[in-house]
């Protein structure tokens, strides 16, 4: 097979059995440790579903109500477990419905394997019923993809798919399997993939770069750490904490880095970026050494690039060489897995406190607290704020819950105000900004962490994009806690219209259905709160429930998220109002 260069090991004990391609797919999944997948059947994938029926004692398949829901559920599962999420769909519309979730997983580096059915090999290119070129469509948004047209390819390709999805910088892989390949019988044996020629998942750290970085950090007067999801994906939380504490460096996070470090840690100074905290943004342009760890300088983080940390020496810890000098030029690039590179640098770092520098963050926090945080968390005006809902959730969850947020204003409030003690606890669509992500992602998150409380925070807009997944929650009694912060607007777009389009609210006002009745229609316990005096009790009741629970909170309709770095502005130009 010219196309397959997967490196093989474990060739011993190779047993073969004569089975169909469809059954082989199940054996591949089991061999990769998969016990749960999400999907939706249809003509071109039916042989695999027939095998799923036979193997249902070993492999749980959850029927989502839309293929997009299957991808987001797989993502939610992957984000809380660190394992590969699996989604399955039929050809044509089934496959195209996966695309949003695949694109989301690609930009947020989420390990996922998607399996799609395809028309028979002999029908390819004939515009057959439910034929679509999903390989062509998914190419720009997958880490890798492949079309299997004969059964004998299945074991090697499936092994490669899982290896590629989880290794190095993780990402989504799509395997498209023609129906004839599912039906054909062949001699099956499985070997795990341990390497692919031409693919180097983790670059080897260079000691000279580690030394240079250590020297810069040791000499720094105002060092500043910004960490991202690379810390979580590399499971380097302990190493990060050790570095921060030893060197006494204030550390801020990107939206996907949230929960990698205890939110109450004294050196955790908050979020960077468009709606991040005041201090970390302003002081980005005052630090002398910027230490970026497992983050990619997204434009929502940096604001205007020509006024981003220009005064600072930049050290970039990163696993993906293509991210180096992509948006921000670094003075020292430390390539490698964050766990390894941080472990290597730690012994070379001098102990320090940087008290005066840290005080600057505290001063900035005081300003933000008085003007923004206090009125959000403890409002004196009538009208519920999104912030106070988060505060009540924090109290009831004791900072232990997984928070799954959708996209928009409520997401910014959730990420700004939710408290975390444990890593892999913040699940949100960061890079793609996919409305409709949260409800299905919460299903996956809960099924990946059944012992933990999973609370999903969703706006009234995004909720209605994937609301049908309530059917899954009901059918399988998945005890997620659903909080819809209803402001009867597409709040974030409305905020931009208010600030930048002279309050012309084009298509952002929503006339909503009775969300409580909808939840009750799915036999999910549901409640609505619109008064402050009822909020605490309602949140506590929700959190205490052993069953799924829906809580609608009617919040202030025209509230805005601040601070804010307007699009195209510098981090120094962050607005408090």
């Amino acid at each position: 097979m010219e196309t397959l260069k997967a490196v093989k090991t474990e060739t011993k004990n190779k047993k073969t059995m004569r089975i169909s391609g469809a059954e082989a797919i199940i054996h591949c999944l089991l061999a990769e440790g998969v016990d749960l997948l999400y999907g939706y059947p249809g003509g071109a994938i039916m042989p695999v579903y027939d095998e799923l029926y036979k193997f249902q004692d070993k492999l749980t398949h959850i029927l989502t109500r839309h293929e997009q829901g299957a991808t987001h559920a797989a993502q939610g599962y992957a984000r809380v477990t660190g394992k590969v999420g699996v989604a399955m769909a039929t050809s044509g519309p089934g496959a195209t419905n996966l695309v949003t979730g695949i694109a989301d997983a690609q930009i947020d580096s989420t390990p996922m394997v998607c399996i799609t059915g395809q028309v028979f090999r002999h029908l390819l290119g004939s515009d057959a019923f439910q034929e679509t070129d999903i390989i062509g469509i998914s190419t720009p948004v997958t880490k890798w993809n492949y079309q299997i047209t004969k059964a004998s390819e299945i074991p090697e390709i499936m092994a490669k798919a899982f290896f590629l999805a989880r290794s190095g910088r993780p990402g989504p892989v799509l395997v498209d399997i023609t129906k004839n390949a599912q039906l054909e019988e062949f001699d099956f044996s499985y070997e795990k993939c341990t390497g692919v020629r031409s693919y180097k998942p983790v670059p080897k750290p260079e000691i000279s770069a580690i030394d240079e970085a250590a020297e810069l950090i040791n000499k720094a007067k105002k060092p500043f750490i910004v960490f991202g999801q690379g810390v979580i994906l590399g499971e380097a939380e302990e190493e990060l904490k050790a570095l921060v504490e030893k060197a006494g460096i204030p550390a801020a996070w990107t939206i996907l880095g949230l929960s990698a470090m205890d939110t109450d840690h004294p050196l955790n100074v908050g979020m960077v970026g468009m709606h991040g905290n005041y201090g970390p943004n302003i002081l980005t342009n005052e630090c002398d050494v910027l230490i970026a760890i497992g983050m990619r300088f997204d434009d929502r983080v940096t604001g205007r690039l020509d006024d981003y940390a220009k005064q600072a020496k930049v050290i970039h810890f990163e696993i993906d060489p293509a991210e180096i000098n992509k948006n921000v030029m670094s003075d020292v690039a430390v390539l490698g897995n964050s766990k390894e590179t941080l472990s290597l640098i730690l012994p070379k770092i001098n102990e320090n406190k940087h008290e005066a520098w840290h005080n600057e963050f505290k001063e900035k926090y005081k300003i933000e607290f008085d003007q923004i945080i206090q009125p959000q968390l403890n409002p004196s005006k009538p009208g519920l704020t999104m912030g106070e809902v988060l505060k009540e959730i924090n109290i009831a969850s004791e900072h232990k819950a997984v928070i799954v947020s959708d996209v928009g204003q409520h997401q910014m409030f959730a990420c700004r105000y939710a408290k975390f003690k444990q890593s892999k606890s913040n699940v949100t669509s960061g890079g793609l900004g996919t409305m409709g992500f949260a409800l299905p992602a919460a299903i996956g998150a809960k099924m990946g962490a059944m012992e933990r409380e999973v609370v999903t925070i969703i706006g009234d807009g995004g909720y209605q994009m994937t609301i049908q997944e309530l059917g899954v929650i009901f059918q399988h009694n998945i005890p997620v806690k659903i909080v819809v912060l209803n402001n009867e607007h597409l709040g974030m777009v409305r905020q931009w219209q208010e600030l930048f389009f002279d309050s012309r609210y084009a298509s952002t006002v929503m006339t909503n259905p009775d969300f409580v009745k909808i939840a009750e229609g799915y036999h999910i316990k549901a409640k609505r709160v619109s008064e402050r005096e009822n909020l605490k009790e309602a949140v506590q009741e929700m959190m205490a429930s052993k069953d799924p629970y829906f809580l609608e909170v009617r919040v202030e309709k025209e509230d805005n998220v601040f601070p804010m770095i307007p699009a195209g502005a510098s981090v120094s130009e962050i607005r408090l109002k």
Partner: protein
Amino acid sequence: MEKETFTISVYSENNVGLLNRISGIFLKRHVNVESLNVSKSEIDGVSKFTIVIIETYEAARKIVGQIEKQIEVIKAYFHTNDETIYQESALFKIKSSLLFDERQIQNIIKESNSQIVTVSRDFFVLSKTGRRSEVDEMHSQLEPFGIMQFVRSGRIAITKAEMPISTLLEEFNLNK
């Protein structure tokens, strides 16, 4: 930063779909590809893409980084014209009668160092290999007499510096 001509050389596995994956990288960045050639390389089973773009150094560097990130790409390089030896090929189909009627045609063939590939009763075909400017010059000389068909290949290039693909492949094998 000024735009200039860069020749990108990509060494890759010979897989269905990789061309699509690589061309998508240019599409996503709205970069026009001036020419593209895919062939085998000096290593068995390894393909070589030769892609010419006119871009800034920074843009070319980032594109090459994204290309190299693709799973089946072994290594990607980019070079300026000065750093490469490069050629293109062109074919011209011309009416046979002109060969006898127009004395100038014979001079053009001689001076351009082109070859006659085939001659039939109706037409003959000239082949020319060289720099773009030489091909263009020959085209403009022949044009007044009438060119029945013309085609020019993508650039093929060899670098002056070493491209240690074999060493890299050995490293990949050791690293796994």
